[in-house]
């Protein structure tokens, strides 16, 4: 007989479930400005406290404080604000369009708009973003045509992806936005390879890639970090920790044991943990990692700490697994409200101007949606059927030629 107690099997569970009161007391939010800003070329061993801090710039009153203030001009701040507001208006309209049967599927990014918008403003058009499906704000910040997005979502005759892809799995090469795929995480390593290629060619381009905290459990995450570290690839690898992977809380991905940014330490990479609802912090941290990459300092892992306000997708009902009002209690607030408050505090913005902008982005989305609907919504319009058979290979082999003929197109 063993003197040891019986072993216990541990399954992490979130603090609260539907019907309970939201409880984020376990989340430690350091005051804005309290996390240090090391030199961009600091040696990795000197950065090991960073993944346990939280880079924050905007304080509770909307002031920009501390060493990470990126010092953006009012026009840059407004550009970011507009991109976030446009994203939100777009999400709202496209969610509604799905409910009206105009598309088969949609995913909103409510609450996470700062992540895509701010990183997009740091990276150039020649750089490449390997995004997740919850980052349309990246395209919004670089004025990708709304109509093209909508045509893709409706899979209509003008769909740039020719009706082949699920809604929102965009591809926008000219905008530095890599082709999305439904299988999560599998492009994380592509970003590393792309960055290795840029270094191999002696170019100046860098890559940025995103993965959700749930997907960090995939092997792709480990592979990408290993290769990024081994070859010092000029890449920024980002984890968008929105606390939820469909119905699974972040503890199921290993988030209860340590931070996702701290994974970097084991790979010998710098890890930054950043307030993902703080536009200025996201911008500043991305700039730090971009500067490091551009000066041959190699890769950085950034965890953007945020909250998925809406359901996972149009096929999901979050009230089945978490309190309905949990988002309202999220301690890092709302990225749009926080940047708005900051701009008003600077004297560069007002409630009236904000309302005007809100109306303007809503109008822009409405106009684009109308144009997209005029081309056609799901099932009313689609690209030429022959598009089934194009682009499988650069040149079709006899199978494809025969099958196209069989389809009569």
């Amino acid at each position, binding site marked *: 007989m063993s003197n040891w107690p019986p072993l216990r099997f541990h399954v992490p569970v979130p603090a609260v479930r539907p019907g309970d009161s939201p409880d984020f007391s376990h989340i430690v939010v350091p005051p804005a400005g309290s996390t240090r800003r090391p030199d961009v070329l600091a040696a990795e061993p000197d950065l090991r406290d960073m993944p346990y801090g939280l880079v924050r710039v905007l304080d509770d009153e909307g002031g920009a404080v501390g060493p990470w203030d990126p010092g953006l001009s009012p026009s840059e701040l407004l550009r970011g604000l507009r991109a976030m507001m446009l994203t939100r208006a777009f999400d709202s309209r496209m969610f509604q369009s799905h409910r009206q049967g105009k598309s088969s599927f949609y995913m909103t990014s409510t609450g996470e708009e700062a992540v895509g918008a701010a990183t997009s403003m740091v990276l150039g058009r020649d750089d490449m973003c390997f995004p997740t499906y919850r980052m349309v704000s990246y395209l919004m910040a670089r004025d990708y045509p709304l109509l093209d997005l909508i045509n893709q979502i409706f899979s209509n005759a003008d769909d740039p992806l020719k009706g082949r892809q699920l809604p929102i799995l965009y591809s926008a090469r000219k905008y530095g936005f890599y082709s999305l795929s439904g299988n999560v995480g*599998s492009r994380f390593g*592509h970003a590393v390879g792309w960055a290795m290629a840029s270094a191999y060619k002696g170019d100046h381009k860098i890559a940025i890639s995103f993965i959700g905290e749930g997907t960090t459990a995939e092997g792709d995450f480990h592979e990408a970090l290993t290769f990024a570290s081994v070859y010092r690839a000029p890449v920024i690898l980002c984890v968008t920790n929105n606390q939820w992977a469909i119905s699974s809380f972040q503890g199921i991905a290993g988030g209860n044991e340590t931070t996702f940014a701290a994974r970097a330490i084991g790979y010998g990479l710098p890890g930054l943990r950043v307030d993902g609802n703080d536009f200025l912090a996201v911008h500043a941290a991305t700039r730090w990692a971009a500067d490091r990459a551009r000066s041959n300092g190699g890769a950085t892992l950034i965890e953007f700490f945020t909250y998925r306000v809406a359901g996972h997708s149009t096929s999901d009902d979050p009230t089945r697994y978490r309190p309905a009002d949990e988002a309202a209690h999220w301690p890092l607030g709302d990225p749009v409200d926080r940047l708005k408050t900051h701009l008003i505090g600077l004297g560069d913005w007002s409630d009236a101007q904000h309302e005007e902008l809100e109306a303007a982005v809503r109008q822009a989305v409405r106009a684009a949606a109308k144009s997209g609907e005029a081309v056609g919504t799901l099932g009313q319009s689609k690209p030429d059927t022959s598009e089934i058979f194009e682009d499988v290979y650069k040149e079709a082999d*006899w199978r494809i030629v025969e099958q196209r003929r069989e389809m009569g197109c």
Partner: protein
Amino acid sequence: MNMVRAINSALDVMLGRDPDVLIFGEDVGYFGGVFRVTDGLAERHGVARCFDAPISEGGIVATAIGMGAYGLRPVVEIQFADYILPAYDQLVSEAARLRYRSGGEFWAPITVRSPYGGGIFGGQTHSSSPEAIFAHVSGLKTVIPSNPYDAKGLLIAAIEDDDPVIFLEPKRIYNGPFDGRFDRPVSNWAQHPASEVPEGYYTVPLGKAAIARHGAAVTVLAYGTMVHVALSAVEESGIDAEVIDLRSIVPLDLDSILQSVRKTRRCVIVHEASRFAGFGAELSALVQERCFYHLEAPIERVAGWDTPYPHAFERDYFLGPDRVVVAMQRTLKG
């Protein structure tokens, strides 16, 4: 040249011709590869052109795809085809579909080289023939050479191809054409005409089969090591078979196959991989659909058993000329 030298020469030629070609994989750099295929390349072309990779098949293929999307032509090695499965998601979900799903915006002109096939006492994880699992994937090409001349020409064509190519190298015939007779001394390539390999650049086009032996009695479809097994079976049996070396699984040279079967009216398909849902099933279906009124006998499939590849039973499992002879004789009676 033997097959190892021929493949090495193809890589050397392409590194010299195209600065966007680079090579990586496990042990391919300084050491020159566990089969010596990349021997001397790092030294000659520099460590940035031919380098060692972490033991991560998924990572190797993923980074190659990213490089391909950038504009490079990476040639990566998976040490054994048995270990390509960790990269299967990358090959199927990413490399194969990138062009299609992005509406032609991105593509991955990568070549994935991998030693494959049995006959070397490799047991379960150094012997398998996974070509059928790639043949089923739209967007991938799969190429399998059977001799040094083709190996070099096909590999250069694969590297230059703008689609992802799985290049399977039958490791049993790296050093000599093995015909499945374990009881006879193995010959080396030197006595074989296909060991005459030009030093410089040339290609063998993908999607074109070769007639390894002209004949009139029965068509034998084979690739890789099995081409030599089939030729040996023909020689030993005296049956006037036409042996077609497919060379490419995808794209498949259907015309050459149909032309031959319509002439011989009989078809035997030979592959090392397990029979059930193997590539032979596709070949059989294509021949049956398109040569139905020409066929004088049921199509025969001679293949590996539907078991994992066993170690001690290597010579019971690996199919030799005898089984091919029996199949040819059956079709001739039919």
